[in-house]
């Protein structure tokens, strides 16, 4: 095995040299040496909201599913129906344990050509090995899983100018792709996947390219985007961006310990007329009711609340914060939390315990930020 462990150094993506050259502050993230920031989280956040930012997301797992009966097999492992997906569709879904706990949240791409039964998954870096083991425990005789994480790189181009920058590089306009669809195309650099997806709340694309050409692709995108003020953005900005956009993050809002029924991701859980691992537990949890609810919190003063802080109503503890930051867009602390159902209504006046002092927090609608179309 070539998996890193406590004694081996973290992996580097094929864009590592670009991060170093850009002066990135590098951290170990899920076994990868990743840029947490280059110039500063707020500056990078604003670049993405206002112009266009490049993110190296090569650490994410990329798994190709090949063989026969792939869709049927995958459908039995994910919370959202995939058997009806047309070629090019990209579906956000959860992979759950029997008890409804979440093993990962993933994107599943139905790959061309028409009539084929090939899929590609993008999974969280921290969960890639766990998912491979899980899939191995639920094998299908004719389905092969090919781990493409190390021979490809993944670059997210995000922001109001992202599609224009990507169009120049691609030689065609990716706004012709509907949201959550993708295309595999032959580009001068090789065969690439273009998906109209992202994790920032901005428009944009995510590109999967051969690892060997990743640096050249990055450089070319930086060059094309220069007049638009393009800049690289790190995992720090990725987190503030996704949090403003109300998107859950695995390990925070989604965990093995919390039933998928709580996550507020109804669109991604289709259990009425199909079966998948975890389905019965999720349906039963919903029927029992009184589940905690994922909510957005906005704080009155400037002190950020962090993961793990208790949420109170009066003296009673009624929930816990799962992610918290200072929102650069709203200029206020924001958080996501799970709170008991009767405290989850928008407008509920709650408080959060920040290391012993209580601060007012109001339940607000998710997402915190929605781009103007």
């Amino acid at each position, binding site marked *: 095995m070539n998996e890193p462990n406590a004694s081996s150094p973290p992996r580097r993506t094929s864009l590592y040299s670009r991060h170093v050259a850009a002066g990135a502050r590098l951290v170990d993230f899920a076994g990868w040496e990743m840029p*947490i*920031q280059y110039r*500063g*989280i*707020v500056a990078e956040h604003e670049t993405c909201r206002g112009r266009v930012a490049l993110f190296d997301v090569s650490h994410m797992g990329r798994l190709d599913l090949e063989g026969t009966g792939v869709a049927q097999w995958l459908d039995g492992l994910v919370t959202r129906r995939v058997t009806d997906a047309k070629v090019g569709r990209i579906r956000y879904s959860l992979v759950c344990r029997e008890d409804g706990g979440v093993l990962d949240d993933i994107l599943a791409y139905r790959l061309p050509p028409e009539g084929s039964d090939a899929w590609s998954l993008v999974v969280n870096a921290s969960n890639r090995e766990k998912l491979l083991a899980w899939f191995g425990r639920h094998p299908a005789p004719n389905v092969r899983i090919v781990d493409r994480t190390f021979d490809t790189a993944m670059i997210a181009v995000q922001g109001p100018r992202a599609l224009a920058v990507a169009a120049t590089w691609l030689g065609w306009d990716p706004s012709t792709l509907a949201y959550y669809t993708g295309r595999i195309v032959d580009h001068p650099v090789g065969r690439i996947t273009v998906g109209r997806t992202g994790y920032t709340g901005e428009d944009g694309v995510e590109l999967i390219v051969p690892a060997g050409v990743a640096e050249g692709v990055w450089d070319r995108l930086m060059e094309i985007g220069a007049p638009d003020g393009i800049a690289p953005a790190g995992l*720090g900005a990725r*987190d*503030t961006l996704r949090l403003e956009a109300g998107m859950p993050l695995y390990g925070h809002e989604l965990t093995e310990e919390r039933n998928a029924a709580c996550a507020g991701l109804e669109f991604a859980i289709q259990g009425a007329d199909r079966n998948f691992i975890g389905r019965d537990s999720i349906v039963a949890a919903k029927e029992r009711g009184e589940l905690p609810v994922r909510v957005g919190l906005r704080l009155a003063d*400037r*002190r*950020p609340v*962090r993961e793990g802080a208790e949420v109170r109503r009066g003296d009673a503890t009624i929930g816990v914060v799962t992610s918290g*930051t*200072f929102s*650069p867009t709203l200029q206020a*602390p924001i958080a996501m939390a799970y709170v008991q159902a009767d405290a989850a209504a928008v407008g509920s006046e709650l408080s959060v315990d920040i290391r012993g002092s209580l601060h007012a927090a109001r339940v607000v609608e998710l997402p915190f930020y929605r781009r103007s179309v």
Partner: protein
Amino acid sequence: MRVDPSKLLFAETHEWVAVESVGGNRVATIGISPFAVEQLTDLVYIELPKVGAKATAGKEFGEVESVKAVSALYSPVDGEIVAVNDALADSLEVLGTDAYGQGWMIKVKLSDEAALSKLMDLAAYEKQCGESH
């Protein structure tokens, strides 16, 4: 006030200290170094103590938060807090532009000067920053 950093003392935890004699007392002005501010980046919140509180060398006197994380501020000295820079809460950007001047955080009337001997001069502190980089 602008302080010449070569006349300051520094803690391993990145606080700076300027000691002066004021009316027969020894008073330490305390802040954090520009290196620390640069490492923290994107500061959004500061929590400082009240005048009259006790400061103990090596113990927290407050905290500062960036977008990403919270960091404790440690007192490099022992004594009583006699002044707090309350203006800082609404002007955290001065930490980035004038960490040794307008960025001061607290003034402590020293009860004991023993803790000063554990602090570094600028050259030693810069060496530490170079090594941690």
